[in-house]
């Protein structure tokens, strides 16, 4: 055991006596006049219910969380009275700018209200009635195999940081738990789609996994968030939009529609976090630029991996015939340019100005020649 409670309570006479006193009716009521703010929160808009924003009041509000959280390291709910010997939970993220984004509470509320269930919300039987051609189904199976790798890495990212974030950032942690469920659900949906089509899963991608592991294991949360939330989330949003547009079945279109909703939230948080970080830590601008300089190559791993590129060409062109592959190549060229353009738009809008001028990616993208 890494931790034992500070005492064996079964052997502590004073503690047992205190409990006995209460059960004999001698209440201490030491908590009765807690030194805390008295408030009565109400929904601002009854149709929307009681949101976290409605409770952004006084010392309870997230607006009043300071940049440095120095006085809380335990499980105490923000705003309640601390007393006695509280455990140190060992949080390593205690600065608001490292994690916060102004849209955290909105994204959390949206996440809950847009819940969906892959088991029943996708019209799976459509694939029984209208099975795809074998090459199209194989391409889908490969694409969904890749998407599961992305979903798992994203799931790990949110999970690994939740327990080390100070409990005062309760809305932030709640949002990240919602992200965890989002990625578990997308992972489920992608797996179900791949297997239901009959082609099984396909090949895991060394290129993709090597790149994603580099992003996942960023040294700080804010660096990892730029990679996983903004870059990967944004990339998947564009990919899902493209796949929805060229979807070979109603099942794929429906699935990609839900996936777009979920991935859009990840990208939105990633942008908001980077913006908040740079607004409050402007001196870190160059350090973040340098981090992105070093890790941006992973974007190319995603765009260029044959396990991603080739099935996308087949799906976009509608098959493996020469003309289909040609049409698919044209469509995928556009997709790649779109993914790159949106990536730079997002990251620059979040505060990494002139990123596209500094990045080595545009020069590579410029070399793309669509099939004649």
């Amino acid at each position, binding site marked *: *055991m890494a*931790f034992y*409670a500070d005492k064996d*309570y079964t052997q502590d006479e004073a*503690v047992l006596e205190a*409990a006995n006193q*209460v*059960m004999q*009716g001698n*209440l201490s009521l030491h908590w009765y006049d*807690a030194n*805390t*703010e*008295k*408030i*009565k*929160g*109400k929904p601002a808009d009854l149709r929307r219910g009681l949101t976290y924003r409605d*409770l952004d009041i006084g010392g*309870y509000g997230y607006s009043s969380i300071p940049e440095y959280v120095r006085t809380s390291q335990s*499980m*105490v*709910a923000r*705003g*309640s009275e*601390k007393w*006695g010997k509280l455990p140190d*939970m060992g949080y390593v993220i205690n600065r608001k700018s490292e994690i916060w984004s102004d849209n955290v509470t909105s994204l959390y509320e949206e996440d*809950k*209200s847009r*819940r969906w269930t892959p088991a029943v919300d996708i019209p*799976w*039987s459509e694939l029984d009635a209208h099975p795809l051609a074998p090459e199209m189904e*194989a391409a889908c199976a490969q694409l969904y*195999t890749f998407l599961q790798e992305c979903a798992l890495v994203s799931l790990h990212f949110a999970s690994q940081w*939740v*327990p080390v974030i100070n409990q005062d950032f*309760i809305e932030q942690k709640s949002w990240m*738990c*919602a992200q965890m469920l989002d990625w578990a659900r997308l992972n*489920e949906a992608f797996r*179900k789609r791949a297997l*239901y089509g*009959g082609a*099984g*899963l396909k*090949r*895991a991608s*060394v290129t993709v*996994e090597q*790149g*994603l592991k580099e992003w*996942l294991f*960023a040294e700080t949360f804010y660096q990892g968030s730029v990679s996983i939330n903004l870059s990967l989330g944004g990339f998947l949003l564009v990919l899902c939009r493209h796949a929805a547009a060229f979807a070979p079945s109603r099942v794929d279109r429906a699935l990609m529609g839900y996936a777009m909703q979920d991935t859009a939230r990840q990208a939105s948080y990633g942008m908001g976090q980077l913006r908040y970080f740079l607004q409050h830590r402007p001196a870190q601008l160059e350090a973040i630029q340098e981090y992105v300089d070093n890790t941006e190559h*992973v974007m*190319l791993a995603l765009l260029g991996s*044959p396990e991603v*590129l080739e099935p996308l*060409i087949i799906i976009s062109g509608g098959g493996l015939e020469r003309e289909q592959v040609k049409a698919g190549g044209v469509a995928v060229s556009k997709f790649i340019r779109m993914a790159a353009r949106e990536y730079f738009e997002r990251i620059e809008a979040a505060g990494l100005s002139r990123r596209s001028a500094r990045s080595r990616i545009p020069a590579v993208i410029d*070399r793309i020649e669509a099939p004649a």
Partner: protein
Amino acid sequence: MSYLATRNFLEDKDFVDKWLYTIRTGELDLSWMNANTEKVKPHQANPRRGLTYRDLDLGSYGFTAVPEKVRLNRSYAPRGAELVEGLPDAQPWVSRKSEVWAFNTESYYEEAVSRQWNVTTDIPWERLDGVELPETIGKALSQLMTFLTEVEMIATDTPALWLPRINPEFVEVKAFIASQAMDEARHTEAFRKRALTTGWGLMKASPMNEMALKHLRDADSFSEMSVALHLVAEGNVLTLFRFSEYLSPTDVDKRIFRLVMQDEARHVGYGMQHFKYVLENFPEKREVVHAHLDEAENISFAGAAATELTESFIILAGGGLKRENIEEGIKITTRFNLKQMEEHFERLEKCGMPERKERSKLFQMFEMGKAAAEAAGIRLN
């Protein structure tokens, strides 16, 4: 960076050239099309339930086929995909099935996804408008909610901490654990929101409970963590929720407790099935878990001694601070305490650990408490 990919893709001329060539010429490699994987054709066993994870329990893709010791896949590849040389190691700590598995895991997850609820809109907050609870009840309710917010916090951090440590082959377990983290975040939200709508705000922290609860997170193995979190702590909390629903001062509070009970019962269900699986498939773990339970049951003692919780519970149960209220509150609280302990040992017995009673100090306390209660005319059932 703490991990570097085996190559920098922007600097890998061959990689970039091949990529550009493929797009330009349309000459596809297509070797992935012949991946050495199984072809299966799942069907929906019950179309009303849709396509479930259980429907995918086929061949090498199925959870049934996962071996006791996962030796082959340590990457981010989904179970059943073709594994090729060069995949990175995801660094899982838990690669043994009996350390994480539970009969019905996939169904617990499916249920969690389909029963997601929204604290913001599924609780009739508007009904609190104009409700003025007596000061004693309002403060006691706020104190209870303050404590529950603390409890739910550790129940969020703990599954989140363990999830990335679990081998990716156990995709259904990871999915369930993710759903649990979200459930607990929702509970934290519910209890915080309720405390902040009483007019009294949050109240006092519960140091003794916190000190005892920290050990839930810092267990040596997933199984030990699960026994302490899912079985002991959440089992206790489930009983607490049931009693809290009974003594809730408003319909809004009853609604909150009914909804959180659904979720908590699922977590306890997983914990029981997992523990049973451990005892049946990893028998040498029995003694380890006994030792861990010795510590976990310490939580129950700490909880009983945390007067800020017990006292608020007594006031809510009795309906006030007058002598007769307190007497009634103590009777109900005594029943609650005993019920909590009784159910704890019932669960352990059902899982296959009937001998726990002989070893447990908590069971001795239960028997003494039960005898004293009966002598005072308080019947447990």
